């Protein structure tokens, strides 16, 4: 299985607006990005599961320059690190047009499409 095939369940779920994570069948630990084994217990039985997509902003920052052509004309972009309630800390972006967030803010997941169609995890603040 090559890298694209291994990631196929992630992309299929993303197309439905859902974040798919691997979860260890033995101990339940969420595994992301893709790994061969659970780092907690060493089991190789990893199953795809769906994250609820809720979490808290660990950190944010503003991308002002990029060497990638796909970012041309789109800068600045707000980058996020989000601590998922039911998973690890993941890199993401603030949803286009969403209000600014700060460390500690509650956020919920969506997806936006990169220039080449790659689904990108994005978050926006949960209304208080």
């Amino acid at each position, binding site marked *: 299985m090559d890298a694209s095939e291994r990631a196929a369940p992630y992309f299929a779920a993303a197309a439905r607006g859902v974040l798919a994570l691997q979860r260890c069948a033995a101990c339940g630990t969420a595994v992301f990005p893709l790994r061969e084994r659970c780092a907690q217990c060493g089991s190789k039985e990893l199953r795809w599961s769906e994250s609820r997509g809720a979490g808290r902003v660990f950190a*944010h*920052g503003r*991308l002002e*320059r990029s060497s990638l052509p796909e970012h041309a004309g789109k800068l600045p972009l707000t980058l996020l690190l989000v601590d998922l309630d039911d998973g690890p800390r993941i890199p993401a972006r603030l949803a286009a047009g969403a209000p600014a967030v700060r460390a500690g803010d509650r956020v919920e997941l969506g997806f936006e499409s990169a220039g080449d169609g790659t689904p*990108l995890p994005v978050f926006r603040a949960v209304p208080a």
Partner: protein
Amino acid sequence: MTDSFSGATAICGLGMTELGKVYGRTASDFAVEAVQRALTDAGLAKSDLDGLLLNAGISQGIDLSLAQTLGLGRLSLLTQMQGYGSTAGQMVQYAALAVHHGLARHVACVFADAPLVEGERAGQAYGGGRARRPGLGSVLPSLGFLGPIPFYALHAQRHMDVYGTTQNQLGAVALGSRAWAQRNPQAQMRGELSLDGYHASPWVVAPFHVLDCCLVSNGAICVIVSRAERARDLARPPVYVLGVGQAHQLQWDDAVPSLAQRSSRTAFEMAGCAPSDVRQCQMYDCYTFTVLTTLEDYGFCKRGEGGPFAASGALAPGGALPTNTGGGMLSSYYMWGMTPISEAVIQARGDGGDRQQRADLIAVSGNGGIFNHHATLVLSPHARS
């Protein structure tokens, strides 16, 4: 073991090539020159050298074949190490342990890199342009996480959100380094820098301006580690290794003790000293922000108070805790962990010239990955009494 190890070994040789925008030479060529310079500095012959630890930088231009290039035919210790920015500190630690226990007599630790190519932007060397990868590998760059800068910038912004750290306080670190660099003839960036000039520097990933990020440099630095009693018979005053420590973790953790706290505590305890005994710091300043967090974690100020501490002028010339007295990686040269170590050796020997500061006890840090790896050295011109 702790008591007998502290001060039992020393850095006896330092070799630095020309550093910075030095074009047309390979990393291997720089490495050979640095080792030769360190041997000459120590007053050792090549045949005295029986250990070689090496660390290739981003250009991966040196490997174990360096032993052949150097003609070192009878080594007792030879390996290539990788702990990113913590590697240099680690090399000195493993070299010190090896000479202390008799595995080798004189161990050269060398870092060499040559990522700068004439006519190309420095940013190209570190994750600027990166080939697309299959599978999930395309998500990270598409999001905009290119190289390490975004990760560090976001951690800095978190520090601002949580503790109220300001842009001016990050700027104070950059200004302090520049003021020191102006006293270092080898520094790459020696022009005047004002706070206005800092703010005018282009954004990369806010809150980082270009001037919050370290330079990219070509060159090599080598130090030679020996047992203290051997070092005392050599050409230059020994720089004693009083304490060493490391810590590693999977990601930034707000919990106390943190990564750098664990590493520095081990080193300070071994050295039998407290942060208040330290006269100067040589901190791994890959970014202005890492200086703030390292000062906090080492105990020079409380967590969250690194910004005001820097803004008070403490780190700059004339300040209470002279830090990165050679200009650091922000303004002088980026030789990974060898930048702070080499400056500590220069200061401990009293060779600092216009930038010489009190150097009785020097804290040296190295951090690698995104707060994943940390190494601490406590160095001194004085053996422990």
